């Protein structure tokens, strides 16, 4: 545009070039992350794909690769995740509600707040040590599903609490005011409006948290999840195994076939993860839509 002097337009041209380069750079970085995931998935699937069949899903572990399956680990993981969800969601959301809606801005809530933030950064292995000492030993819950679930719940509670608090914070104050001004009590307001309105955000936190717990190995091994379990747990007090443990075990076997089984196990685990995320996202979108 002949609006400017020669020098100014050269300066402008330089700025435009920089902007273009930057945009391309960012896009390239993002796409390479996606590519990385693709590579990872590709690696896993070429290795494990040939083992992936119904036999694999429906069999217990075995010393013969062709007979080995992931049944007990898959069921154990589903049990574990369900229990974890059952424990951690109510407790986590309750804590978040207490901090956001009921507790004042006093010292105690500040302490809890800092404490929760700190717990989020405690390494998972430390939770394993804790779970072993508290649940397995002190409460004599033994190496059961419930011990594992409680330990895992402690591990992911901070994530749920923090995410839920953020979600609750985004609920417009106006909605609370509206409810109070209609003569609602605090709990009526919270239950009927705050909680539903923050549900999508809470779900996001829950997805993240459960995803994390589905892939954790170290604390489970610590508290004594089994490796070979040739039966399906029938209650929370039964011993169990979980997919990451099974995968870890297969991977460390000398035979190449077991390594491939491990890859197949990873595919199943990712599928479970994906299914769980999809369910959660579906629920989230549905509530979001219902509220629009």
């Amino acid at each position, binding site marked *: 545009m002949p609006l400017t002097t020669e020098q100014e337009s050269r300066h402008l041209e330089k700025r435009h070039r920089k902007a273009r380069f930057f945009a391309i750079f960012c896009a390239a970085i993002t796409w390479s992350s996606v590519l990385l995931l693709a590579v990872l998935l590709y690696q896993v699937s070429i290795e494990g794909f040939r083992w992936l069949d119904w036999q694999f899903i429906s069999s217990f572990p075995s010393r013969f690769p062709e007979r080995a399956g992931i049944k007990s680990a898959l069921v154990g993981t589903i049990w574990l995740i369900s229990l974890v969800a059952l424990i951690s969601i109510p407790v986590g959301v309750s804590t978040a509600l207490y901090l956001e809606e009921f507790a004042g801005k006093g010292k105690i809530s500040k302490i809890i707040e800092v404490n929760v933030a700190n717990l989020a950064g405690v390494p998972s292995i430390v939770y394993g040590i804790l779970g072993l000492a508290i649940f397995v030993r002190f409460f004599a819950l033994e190496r059961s599903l419930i011990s594992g679930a409680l330990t895992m719940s402690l591990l992911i509670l901070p994530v749920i609490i923090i995410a839920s608090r953020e979600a609750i914070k985004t609920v*417009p104050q*106006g*909605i609370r*005011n509206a409810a109070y*001004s*209609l*003569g*609602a009590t605090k709990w009526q307001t919270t239950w*009927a409006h705050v909680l539903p309105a923050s549900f999508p955000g809470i779900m996001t936190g829950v997805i993240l948290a459960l995803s994390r717990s589905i892939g954790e190995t170290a604390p489970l091994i610590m508290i004594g999840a089994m490796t070979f379990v040739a039966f399906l747990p029938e209650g929370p007090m039964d011993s169990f195994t979980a997919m990451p443990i099974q995968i870890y075990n297969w991977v460390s076997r000398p035979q190449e076939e077991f390594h491939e089984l491990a890859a197949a196990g990873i595919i199943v685990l990712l599928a479970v993860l994906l299914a769980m995320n999809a369910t959660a996202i579906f629920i989230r979108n549905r509530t979001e839509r219902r509220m629009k």
Partner: protein
Amino acid sequence: MSQFPDSTLAEQNLQMSKKSVLELRNVNIFYSDNQAVNDVSFNIRRNKITAIIGPSGCGKSTLLRSLNRMNDFVDGARVEGELIFSNENLYGKEVDPVEVRRRIGMVFQKPNPFPKSIYNNISWGPLINGYNGSTDELVERSLKQAALWEEVKDRLHESALNLSGGQQQRLCIARALAMEPEVLLMDEPCSALDPISTARIEDLLFELKSSYTIVIVTHNMQQAARISDYTAFMEMGDLIEFNVTKKIFTRPAMKRTEEYVTGRFG
């Protein structure tokens, strides 16, 4: 300060109780150590619109919120003095704030419908408060009162968030009306709306005042002028003038009021 300079005290009391719904007597409101409202006294008349105007931060919203104890939710807020409503001090020990809010409704600055259906928005308040009549009728009646029925009757079960801003605000009014409150408090109910929606709401208020007592905070002086019967002008927490609206805008008694309404402030 006498409100009926020509009448005896006995007469005054009689007149008050007949015409006033809410009486503010020497109301002081504090936020922790800061005083936001200083020694304000006036009466809110039945079936009239009372407007509260004044510069930003003068304590309008604070005062309004004190009228149905919404200040309870503000950390550190403290109310002193008497606010007499149905023969009780609103801030008496015995008084149940939930009950107060049932009977003194409130509409807020930004339309804040619940993210639920139009129908549920209206029925929720009465239901949690033990209403057991026909909710269909209740919803219809409230929406009609709020002049919204015609526009939404075919989509009562759609989300309230699909309504336009002005419709949402009328829904919030309908929601408050469904509780059959004695007094309706409104804090700048039109400031988030476009002029056409604002005009609608103003017309609605004009219609509603035959059956409700309305207190409205507005920083739009023209609005106070257009719709209210009485106007309270506040400044820095003080009530400068409480008067018939026409007076405030043609011949205010106080110099500060005159300066404010003619824009000679700041």
